[in-house]
C-alpha cells in the first residue's frame, strides 16, 4: 500500500469514525443516566436520514437542516416519554426489551412508509465539493466531520462540567434516588439527555449519509450497534471516550475493507468489544465501576 492510498484510507476512516462518534455519544449519555442500551438510537439515526430526504425536497438546505435537527429531537423525546418513562421503576431487562421493541417498530414503520428499497440521499450544497491535495482527494464533508465532531465533543464536555443542567445530569447518573431527593427533576433531565443524544444522532446522520448516498429502513441497525460498541470501548459514560472509540472503529473498519476483508469488518467491531470487555471492562476512559449489590 503506497503512502498516498494509506493517507486516503486514513481520511475516510477518520470521517467515518467522526460520524460513529457522534452517535456513540448519544448511547453513552443515555446509558450513563438510565443504564439502558437504547437499541432504538440507531433507528432514530435512520429516521433522521429519511427526514432529510423529504425536507430537502421542499426546502433549501439552510431551512431543511434545522427542521431535520428539531424533528429528530422531538421524535427522540417522544420515544423516551412513551416507551421508557412508564418503565422507570421496572427491572432493567424490561426497559431494554422495550428499546428493542421501539427499534423494531421504527424499522417496520419506515418499511411501511418509505418501502424497503434504498432511497437516494440528497446532495447538500458545499458538502460534496471535492478538494484536491496532490494525489489526495476528498470531499468537504470528509474534513468537516472530524472537526465538527471535536467541536461538539468539546461543547458537550463543557456543558456537563460547567452548567447547571450538566451538574444535574452527573448527579442523576451517580445516584438516581438521592438526586431526586435533592430536588432534581429527573424526568426533565432524562428528556434533556435524549434531546442532546437525538440532536447528535441527527448531525451524525447528515454527515454519514452524505458519504453513503442512500438510506434504507435497516441502515440504522448495524451502525447503531457498532456505535454502542464504540461507546463501550471508550468507557461508558465518558464523552471523549466515545469519540476515541468511534475513531478507532471507523479507522479499523476502513482498513479492513481496504485490505479485502470486508465481510469481517462487522466481526472486527465485536471482537474488539469482547477483547475490551475482558481486558478492561470499564473501557479506555471509563470510571471505576462501583457495583451495587
Amino acid at each position, binding site marked *: 500500500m503506497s503512502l498516498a492510498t494509506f493517507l486516503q484510507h486514513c481520511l475516510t476512516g477518520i470521517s467515518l469514525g467522526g460520524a460513529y462518534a457522534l452517535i456513540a455519544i448519544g448511547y453513552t449519555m443515555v446509558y450513563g443516566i438510565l443504564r439502558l*442500551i437504547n437499541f432504538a438510537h440507531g433507528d432514530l439515526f435512520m429516521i433522521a436520514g429519511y427526514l432529510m430526504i423529504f425536507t430537502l425536497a421542499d426546502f433549501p438546505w439552510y431551512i431543511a437542516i434545522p427542521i431535520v435537527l428539531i424533528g429528530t429531537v422531538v421524535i427522540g423525546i417522544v420515544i423516551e416519554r412513551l416507551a421508557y418513562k412508564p418503565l422507570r421503576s421496572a427491572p432493567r431487562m424490561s426497559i431494554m426489551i422495550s428499546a428493542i421493541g421501539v427499534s423494531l417498530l421504527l424499522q417496520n414503520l419506515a418499511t411501511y412508509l418509505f418501502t424497503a428499497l434504498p432511497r437516494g440521499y440528497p446532495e447538500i450544497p458545499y458538502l460534496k465539493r471535492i478538494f484536491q491535495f496532490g494525489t489526495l482527494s476528498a470531499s468537504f464533508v470528509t474534513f468537516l466531520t472530524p472537526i465538527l465532531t471535536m467541536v461538539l465533543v468539546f461543547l458537550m464536555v463543557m456543558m456537563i462540567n460547567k452548567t447547571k443542567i450538566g451538574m444535574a445530569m452527573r448527579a442523576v447518573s451517580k445516584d438516581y434516588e438521592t438526586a431526586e431527593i435533592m430536588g432534581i427533576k429527573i424526568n426533565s433531565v432524562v428528556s434533556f439527555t435524549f434531546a442532546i443524544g437525538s440532536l447528535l444522532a441527527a448531525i451524525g446522520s447528515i454527515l454519514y449519509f452524505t458519504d453513503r448516498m442512500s438510506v434504507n429502513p435497516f441502515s440504522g441497525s448495524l451502525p447503531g450497534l457498532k456505535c*454502542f460498541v464504540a461507546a463501550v470501548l471508550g468507557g461508558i459514560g465518558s464523552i471523549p471516550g466515545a469519540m476515541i472509540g468511534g475513531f478507532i472503529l471507523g479507522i479499523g473498519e476502513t482498513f479492513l475493507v481496504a485490505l479485502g476483508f470486508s465481510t469481517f469488518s462487522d466481526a472486527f467491531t465485536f471482537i474488539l468489544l*469482547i477483547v475490551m*470487555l475482558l481486558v478492561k471492562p470499564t473501557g479506555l476512559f471509563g470510571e471505576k465501576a462501583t457495583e451495587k*449489590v
Partner: protein
Amino acid sequence: MKKSTKTLFNIIAVSIILAILIFLEMNKRKFSYDISIIERSMIYAVAAVAMNLTNGFTGLFSLGQAGFMAIGAYTVALLTIPVEARAGVFYVTGMNEFLSKIELPFIPALLLGGLFAAILAGLIGIPVLRLKSDYLAIATLGFSEIIRSIIASPQLNMITNGSYGLKKIPRFSSIFVPIALCCLCILIIVLLINSSYGRAFKAIREDETAAEAMGINLFKHKLTSFMISSFFTGVAGGLLASYMGTIDSGTFKITLTYDILLIVVLGGMGSVTGSILGSFLVTAGREWLRFFDQPLKVGSWQVPLFRTGFRMVVFSVLLMVVVLFYSKGLMGSKEFSWEGLVRFFKNLFTRKQKLNGGVSNGK
C-alpha cells in the same frame, strides 16, 4: 381438582391434538399452509424455551440465539444434503474434498449440530459469562454477528458456500417428525428445570450472592445453563434448516434473535408453557394479520393505511403494548394448569356478574 380428573383432562387434550395432527397429515395437500405454521411454531417454541432457560430461569440476558441456530442449521444442512446433489449446491467453488463425502441421517446430524453449538457456547461462555446483564447481552449479540459474518465470508466458500447459501436440504417426511422432536426437546428442558440443577438456576436468578452463600458454584451453573440452552438452540436451528430447505447467512440475522426474545417476553419470562403459547401466537399472529397488507374497501370507501407493510407495523405496536402494559407477559412466571384455566374462566364470568351488579346498583 382431583389427580385422576387432571390425568383424564391430559389424556383428552393429548388425544385431541394427536387427532388433529393425524387429520392434517392425511390431508397434507389441502392443509400445507396450516402444517407449515404449526411446524414453524413448534421449532420457534424449542428455541424460545431454550432461551427461557438462560434468560428466564437463570437470569442471564443472552442474545446469541441466532448464532447458535446458524451453527445447528449449517451442521445439519452440510451433513444431510444428498451427496449427489452437492455439486449442484456448491456450483461456484466446489465443496471441500473431505466434507463432500460425509453424509449422515437426520437425527445424528441434528445431535451433532446441537453438540457443536454447545461446545462453542462453552468456549464463549468461559470468558463472557463473567460479564453482567447488559454487557453480557451485547457481547453475545456480538458473537452471533461474528458467527454470521464468518459463515458468509468468501474465505469459507468451500465449506459454507459463503453468501450463496445452502439448498436442497432434505425436508421432513411427515408432520410427526418435527413435532415429536420438538416435544422431546421441551420435555428434556422441563425435566432439567425441575431437577436440582433447575432449582440452583432459579436461586442464581433471584440473588447471586445468596445463591453463592448457599454453596452453589455460580460459574459452573451459569455455564451449564448456557451450554444446555445453546445445545437446544442449535437443535432448533437444525430443525429450522430442514423446515426451510434453503438457508443462507441472512436467515440468521439479529432479527431472528429478537423474534425469539419477543416470543419469550410475550409468553412470560420464566414460563415454559408461556413460551410455547407465545410462539404459536407470534407465528400465527403474523399470518392472521396478513389482511392488513391487502387494500380494503368498505362499500365504495377505500380504507386508508391498508397496504404492504402495515401488518408488521400493527404487529410491532401490539408487541409494544404487551411490553408496556403487560410486562409480565401472558403467563408471568406461572405454568399452565387445569386449575388455572378453570379459575381464568370463572374470573371472566364473575367479573361480568360484578359489572352487571354495578350497573344495576347505579340505577
